[in-house]
């Protein structure tokens, strides 16, 4: 009997069950209910925007990325997340362009998956915010015919979309900032307010986040740290001047904070790898969100807060590396002076 052909590979020969595509596609799966909620609130426009953004994200991944990376699901996440940050009435070509820019210039040019510094979805949105400041801040009013498009979705590229008077609403944050009107907390929790597609249903996002945290597909310390910082900081401000500064609950459930804290700040590639790093990273985001919302020129600051903190991730990782087993703590200057 001849000997069997034997394989030779490196240890360990047993591997854990997770894989990168599984993580990515699980995240996509948890986004489905959130997308469904956006369709429930905003009608077919929501689906069209998401679709355009995903298509825009997939295109550069397919043609400029490495072979076979389309299947890892990361570009789909970028597209869906970008779509969720856009208002439902936006022209589709802009959403498409945002997705394209996010993946092409936010990810591919850095070397593809795992190499980028900034969250690609947010980079795409930042690009849209800079290029088309008006359409990206034009919010349709809630209610009305479910089937009706919420704006000029089919505007041709490079043409100004028509803004129909009377069909626009304001987001809770906008209302607060510019008109000093507050919104009902109940509406905020469920999401029946004006805003971007995924900015509205806080409770649902929170539930999906809990599931991902349980699967260890996101580091719960990041959203926990963001929420804590926002609650403490805005709570103190609210105590100082309740008229001018809204309470913590409003801060948590308005705008893009939920979506940003749970889905964007926790993007594995662009967040710290150490646990203390995650706490610092989250605290930085929470602090900046409150600062921008309260004293900045914009009503919403989650996007810039996350992008800003993304830039610090390599630094945070370096300064928060754990003490190696058995290593002595770095000697204090006084101890060195004595020696």
């Amino acid at each position, binding site marked *: 009997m001849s000997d069997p052909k034997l394989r030779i590979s490196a240890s360990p020969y047993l591997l854990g069950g997770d894989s*990168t595509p599984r993580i990515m596609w699980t995240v996509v799966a948890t986004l489905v209910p959130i997308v469904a909620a956006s369709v429930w609130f905003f009608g077919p426009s929501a689906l069209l925007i998401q679709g355009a953004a995903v298509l825009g994200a997939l295109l550069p991944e397919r043609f400029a990325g490495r072979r076979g990376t389309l299947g890892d699901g990361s570009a789909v996440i970028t597209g869906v997340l970008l779509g969720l940050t856009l208002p439902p009435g936006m022209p589709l070509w802009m959403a498409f362009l945002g997705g394209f820019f996010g993946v092409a210039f936010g990810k591919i040019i850095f070397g593809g998956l*795992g190499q980028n510094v900034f969250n690609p979805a947010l980079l795409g949105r930042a690009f849209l915010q800079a290029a088309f400041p008006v359409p990206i801040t034009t919010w349709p009013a809630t209610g009305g015919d479910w089937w009706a498009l919420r704006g000029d979705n089919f505007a041709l590229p490079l043409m100004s979309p028509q803004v129909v008077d009377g069909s626009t609403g304001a987001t809770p944050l906008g209302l607060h900032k510019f008109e000093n009107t507050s919104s009902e907390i109940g509406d905020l929790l469920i999401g029946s307010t004006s805003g971007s597609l995924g900015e509205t249903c806080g409770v649902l996002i929170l539930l999906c986040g809990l599931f991902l945290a349980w699967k260890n597909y996101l580091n719960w310390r990041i959203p926990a740290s963001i929420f804590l910082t926002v609650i403490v900081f805005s709570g103190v401000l609210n105590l100082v001047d309740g008229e001018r500064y809204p309470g913590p609950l409003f801060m948590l459930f308005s705008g893009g904070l939920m979506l940003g804290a749970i889905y964007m700040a926790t993007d594995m590639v662009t967040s710290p790898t150490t646990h203390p790093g995650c706490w610092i990273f989250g605290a930085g985001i929470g602090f900046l969100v409150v600062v921008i919302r309260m004293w900045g020129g914009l009503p919403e600051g989650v996007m810039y807060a996350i992008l800003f903190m993304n830039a610090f991730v390599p630094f945070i990782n370096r300064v928060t590396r754990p003490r190696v087993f*058995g290593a002595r703590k770095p000697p204090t200057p006084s101890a060195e002076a004595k020696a």
Partner: protein
Amino acid sequence: MSTREFFRHGVHPPELKELTAAERIRRIPFPAQVVLPLRQHIGAPAEVLVRPGDRVERGDKIAAANGFVSVPVHASATGVVREISRAPHPDGSYAEAVRIDVDAHSAQVPRARMIPDWRGLDAKQLVAAIQEGGLVGLGGAAFPTHVKLSPPPDQKIDMVVLNGCECEPYLTTDHRTMVEYPERVHLGTRIMMTCLGVDKAVVGIERNKPDAIEAMRATAPSDLDIDIVPLTVKYPQGAEKMLIKAVIDREVPEGGLPMNIGVVVQNVASVATIAEIFETGLPLVERILTVTGHGVRKPRNLIVPVGTMLRDVVAACGGLSDDAAEIIMGGPMMGLAQSSLDTPILKGTSGVVVLNEEQASPRATYPCIRCGHCLDACPVFLDPQHLGSLGLNQEYPSMMEHHLSTCMLCGCCSYVCPSRIPLSHIFGVAKASLRGQGVKV
């Protein structure tokens, strides 16, 4: 019964010990040939004493220790030396080995020899006897036992820690040793403690071996201060540093040895062999070995002569299954895949695991997504993600600055990596390359 767990991180691979956990240890028939490499231990290879054509008896010394950090090699079967040549070594290389044609008609009964009464010997004589017995650590690293038992005079040892964790999946060698030969473990411990002048011993056993804990407790002599500590099941609980942390909460300093904090660690199977040489007078010529995995027909715990070739060991277990694909010596987390069935079992081979096609088929790798799971898994708190990217760029000196030498290649990082980046393999390659340049890692 409390469970201690003071070491953090680590992973929980499937245990897979049920294949052999209840199998009684049995002897295999003597093979037709044994291959005894001169390098079976850490330190200088032994110096050969025999020539082709010489008759040797089981237990005869065929190669002598070459210096202090070295042990002799003994004939594991009665027969005739056929040749002294290079033979496949489990580490993947070829090494000088003595090949013995085993006498088919021999009863394999060793000639009568004087068995010294260990009680009459002092520490120095005991250590010398243990070295002459060819004893090495049987847990895998094969570090000469007598070296551990003779610490430099400036190192004060106050504790013996016995390793009964056997945290590698599949393996049940230590488990069965504790169940079937607990008295030997206790006697070996006593001898060790005499060598070191220590009066306190602790045994760490993972909780998935309740019968071993039971047997060790039931047989513990009343005049021996030995504490049996059940531990949480976790890999790599049996790594020396992790075990010390878990059972007595001391931390081995980076780059240091357990003796620096007053501890000597020995695996239970090795301790049992210390007792064996003083019971039978026979040096280390055979060992207990788990042969298991889904690629072998009848997984078993065996006593095999050192130098038995893989093919004879596998044959004693019903042979390979049709879908056997990869044969590992050692455990599945840190062991080494073997290319030839002619590779011999060494003193330090703790198990043979045969994986089937499904388990061994290669899996797709992806780019690192910086999920940080490897940092959460690393039992020595390294940053494997960062080390891995340095390693792929062959920036080995930078890896040293990031504590590469602390890495023990346990494989936890590779195990959890969702992108299946072979991190521990990258570190192993880096270490080998640095060693080649004369760097101590």
